[in-house]
């Protein structure tokens, strides 16, 4: 089956090329057909490969396909090769499956756009690069996808490029990602000169083997450096502190793009990368500590920023940043599978949330301000129910998907094998963040769907449920938000329910085998006793319920006046959070402004004045001046020459007389 792997990225590539080159002349039906079927085919191929993968022995579940030797210089060899193992399989199914749904949704959402063909072509291009990212068999192919999805993101954020702010947001996303990629590239270099290869199947076994033979100590500086550098790349792509600032602005793109790229798939690439590199991270506990602390800080920090946003998509954007933080907590505390588990459930419910918000925005004729909404539940029942499902899922209430994955992560953080104390702290931040999440998500639900409609007459008249090609993906995603968690039921619950197996953890086990061994050997992880595990679980549910109740009290019971009163009472705090802690402004002042003015200085002073003015034109000026003096001697007047002759004569006579 491995000889068909290339089909998965090939179909979207064809879709992109056909629609991109000829789409302008096609009808919209044909464009939709091409764009959706290509992704559908990719999904089907992925399903077939999955079937074959399951038929293999668990420890041999690896397929590799090499297309051609890409670069070969000296010892450096990189193939354009794909690899399917359980990890990339899970990613591949998520990406192609959700992409397919969002393509269908887009046929409804973007139908009236004049550049429909361009939109669909870009979307296919994104899926192509995303498949490259997750299917690549080495870091360089991963990097192709890594930067490629950045390009797709850049083009789609700035899709409505006539709005200048959209173009600025696109550029910001690209540049911030480039800062991350700077770290990623250096990490690759260090890895290559350490292990002599960048191919997964060379590096990881070699690292594990070197560790076993004592050639590689645990927590050696070089491993920490590699892992931290790669993680810098992840902070860019996956919007973690300090490089998260591009993601909220990226909401300038069309909403399905926010759902696909900026929630479900692309931004999770960093989590995938860390999980993929698990052997190296496990060998560098300090790097894991960095990852999990930054992740926990991001999870809470971004959640608080979501509290006061009024733009429905901005709320979801900060929520995405925060949820990505949870995923990184998972992979950061060596619970790699849990990170991937949350990645999966998050893909379902966050895609659903964004698509629902798209449906709302569609109904509101493009208005995204929640202060103008309210009471939409009656007019848009499908959107309401599906969004409620997804909201409960993200808030972490059982038996919805988010409960299982988030709880697994927090439980594993509590028992962080390398740094137990830090683990407790991370768990604490994560639990508080979970309460905040429940609060702002239900605030969104209450402001949007409950109470009185606060928009204009015209909007009220226009509000309608979306067509089937938009609601069908919502229903499918909402269903998965409900049942998605059952792929990874924790053992403690599974036992009670009559041995429900943890399918996902089991499936992913071979990928994390080396890491699990190393962790077991190094840290002797202690098991959390069962009662404690139950109480941790209960606690996180209680925290979520408190958050929901608080939101209900403030926005439903007290309605309008309490939020305003609170805003006045805590105006300083309110302003700080409302303005997102002024992080954008600080970056502007500390980084952008100095670099810009330094550049102007270099240009005007160093280049134009010093080098060109003094260094280059200076000698020319000097020669001119000197020759102006010398020119006096040859001004063409006989009188002057006569005077010179006389002076010469006098000089000579004097010389001879007084010698």
């Amino acid at each position, binding site marked *: 089956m491995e000889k068909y792997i290339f089909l998965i990225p090939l179909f979207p590539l064809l879709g992109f090329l056909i629609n991109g080159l000829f789409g302008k002349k096609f009808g919209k039906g044909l464009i939709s057909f091409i764009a959706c079927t290509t992704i559908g085919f990719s999904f089907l191929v992925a399903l077939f490969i999955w079937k074959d993968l399951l038929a293999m022995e668990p420890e041999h579940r690896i397929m590799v396909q090499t297309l051609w030797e890409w670069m*070969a210089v000296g010892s450096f060899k990189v193939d354009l090769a794909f690899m399917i193992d359980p990890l990339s399989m899970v990613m591949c199914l998520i990406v192609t499956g959700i992409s397919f749904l969002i393509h269908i949704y887009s046929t409804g959402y973007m139908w009236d756009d004049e550049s429909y063909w361009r939109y669909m072509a870009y979307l296919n291009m994104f899926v192509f690069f995303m498949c490259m990212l997750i299917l690549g068999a080495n870091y360089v192919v991963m990097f*192709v996808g890594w930067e490629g999805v950045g390009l797709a993101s850049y083009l789609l954020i700035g899709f409505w490029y006539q709005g200048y702010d959209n173009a600025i947001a696109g550029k910001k996303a690209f540049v911030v990602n*480039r800062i991350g990629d700077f770290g990623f590239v250096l990490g690759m270099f260090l890895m*290559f*000169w350490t292990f002599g290869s960048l191919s997964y199947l060379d590096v990881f076994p070699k690292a594990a083997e070197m560790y076993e033979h004592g050639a590689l100590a645990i927590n*050696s500086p*070089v491993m920490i450096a590699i892992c931290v550098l790669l993680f810098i790349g992840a902070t860019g792509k996956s919007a973690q502190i300090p490089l998260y600032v591009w993601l909220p602005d990226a909401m300038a793109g069309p909403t399905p793009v926010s759902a696909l790229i900026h929630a479900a798939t692309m931004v999770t690439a960093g989590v995938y990368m860390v999980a993929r590199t698990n052997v190296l991270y496990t060998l560098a506990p300090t790097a894991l500590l960095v990852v999990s602390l930054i992740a926990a800080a991001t999870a809470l920090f971004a959640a608080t920023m979501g509290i006061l946003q009024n733009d429905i998509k901005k709320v979801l954007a900060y929520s995405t940043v925060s949820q990505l933080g949870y995923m990184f907590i998972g992979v950061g505390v060596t619970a790699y599978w849990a990170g991937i588990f949350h990645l999966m459930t998050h893909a379902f419910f966050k895609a659903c949330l964004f698509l629902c918000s798209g449906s709302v925005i569609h109904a509101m004729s493009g208005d995204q301000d929640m202060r103008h909404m309210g009471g939409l539940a009656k007019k848009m029942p499908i959107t309401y129910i599906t969004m409620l499902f997804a909201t409960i899922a993200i808030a972490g209430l059982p038996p919805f998907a988010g409960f299982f994955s988030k709880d697994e992560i927090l439980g594993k953080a509590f028992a962080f094998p390398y740094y137990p104390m830090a683990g407790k702290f991370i768990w604490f931040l994560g639990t508080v963040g979970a309460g905040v999440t429940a609060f702002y998500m239900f605030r969104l639900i209450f402001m949007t769907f409950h109470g009185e409609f606060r928009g204009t007459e015209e909007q009220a008249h226009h509000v309608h449920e979306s067509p089937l090609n938009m609601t069908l993906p919502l229903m499918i995603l909402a269903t998965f938000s409900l049942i998605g968690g059952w792929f990874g039921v924790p053992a403690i619950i599974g036992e009670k329910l009559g041995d429900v197996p943890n399918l996902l953890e089991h499936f992913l086990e071979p990928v994390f085998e080396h890491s699990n061994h190393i962790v077991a050997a190094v840290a002797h992880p202690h098991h959390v006793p069962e009662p404690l595990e139950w109480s941790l679980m209960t606690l996180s549910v209680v925290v979520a319920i408190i958050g929901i109740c608080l939101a209900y009290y403030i926005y439903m019971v007290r309605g309008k006046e309490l939020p305003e009163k609170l805003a006045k009472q805590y105006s300083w705090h309110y302003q700080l959070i409302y303005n997102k802690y002024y992080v954008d402004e600080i970056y502007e002042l500390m980084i952008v402004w100095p670099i810009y003015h330094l550049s102007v200085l270099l240009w005007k002073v160093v*280049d134009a004045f010093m080098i060109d003015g003094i260094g280059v034109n200076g000698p020319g000026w000097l020669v001119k001046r000197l020759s102006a003096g010398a020119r006096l001697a040859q001004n063409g007047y006989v009188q002057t020459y006569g005077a010179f002759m006389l002076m010469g004569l006098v000089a000579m006579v004097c010389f001879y007389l007084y010698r």
Partner: protein
Amino acid sequence: MNAPILTYVTFLPLFGVPFILAMSQKSDSGKNIIRGIALFASLITFIASLRIYFAFDPSIAGFQFIEDHPWINSYGIHYHMGMDGLSFWLVLLTTFLTPLTILSTWRAIDSRVKEFQISMLVLETAMLGTFVALDLFLFYVFWEIMLIPMYLIIGVWGGERRIYAAIKFFLYTAVGSLLMLVCIIGLVYFHHQQTGEMTFNLLSLYGTSIPRFYEIMFFAAFALAFAIKVPMFPLHTWLPDAHVEAPTAGSVILAGILLKMGTYGFFRFAMPLFPAGSAYFTPLIITLSIIGIIYGALVAMVQPDIKKLVAYSSVSHLGYCMLGLYVLTRQGVEGSVLQMINHGISTGALFLLVGVVYERRHTRLIKEYGGIARIMPVYSTIFMIVTLSSIGLPTTNGFIGEFLILLGTFKVNKLAAVLAASGVILGAVYMLWMVQRVFFGEVTNPKNENIPDLNLRELAYLAPLVVLIFWIGLFPNFFLKKMHVSVDHFISQVKVEAAAPSPQVHQAAAIELPGVTVAMAKE
């Protein structure tokens, strides 16, 4: 293979000259025939150069297609030509780029068409000769001849300050060249003293042992001449002026090929002739390369003129080439040679693209544009692709070059690699910021409302460049495998000989990774 293929290719462009001289340029049709002849001559040259492609044997480390005839016997000066894997792609780049450039002048150059096209053809011959000459005297002759048509192209067909720019270009280059000439003679003198043989043959002069002081001085003089051409910081200020004032075709040739003369000079002459001198100056050159990368990018960022922005970006890109060359690892050197080709393609394409809107709007100021994407969609798409290639997005050519250079640099000098890699971020900033201001947003300037999109002729000269951008990006091995052996030879030539008098290079090559006891991956 006994036909003197290099001579054919080098002098084929000149065959167009008498025909052009015979034409009248009074009528439009006459001008078109002149342009047609020039295009034809350069196309024939390109086709002839393909013969080199098929006949070239990449497994030979030394020179191929050698032609060696006595010229001025009493001084041991020969007409001596040859090619190896380093000059191979540069020659093909020259023959490939020239017809495209001539095609781009069809409407842009309308006065003195005859003289212009003759200049172009003479220039092509001089450039090709420079790349294949193996006799220092012959090389010097081509090197200097090259200046004259370029001087005329800037000075006659240039913009407002063309005279200033042309003289600056000429003087800058001439200063370096004269010092180089003195040192060529000095080198021949030392060789004569030791062997009693008077020769300008490069292959014989390699390995001449020169007193250390003189070797360092000679290297410095050669390096000065070439560094001006590259151009390396702080010798770069002729470049923005020359680019801004030169007509589009002049900028394309200047950026695409003439700048490569500098880097080519380093790896053909300065470094292998004076390895000890080269080693002595290595820290300085690496430092200046890195300053060039960052400085060029920063200054490019704040330029109000698109052409000047691209000119400063050349300073940055050529910094990468010099860095790759000087770290003396296989990845670095091959990346460097590839990056020279890439820069010829991408920056050449950028200048051509700037020329397209200049012809329509007669301005190159960024603030005069805005929202062009809606008016000229095809143009914008191609501009975007070239931009991505320039900022080194994977799957385009720029990525391969930068990646290999940085990878090779990282092995010997981590700090240099880190600093140079930051240029990749700045590259994205200045290019995308420019793209944003020129192409996105509403059309604010009514003059831009009715600009026509690309016509067929413009597509004809841009499309081959776009194809090459992806070709190199996806199949770099096709290009790299021609130079493996020659690069190995080059490194051994420069490194081994440098090892004896100056151990710096070797020390730098040993990498130490704390905490790991891995033997370095063997080359």
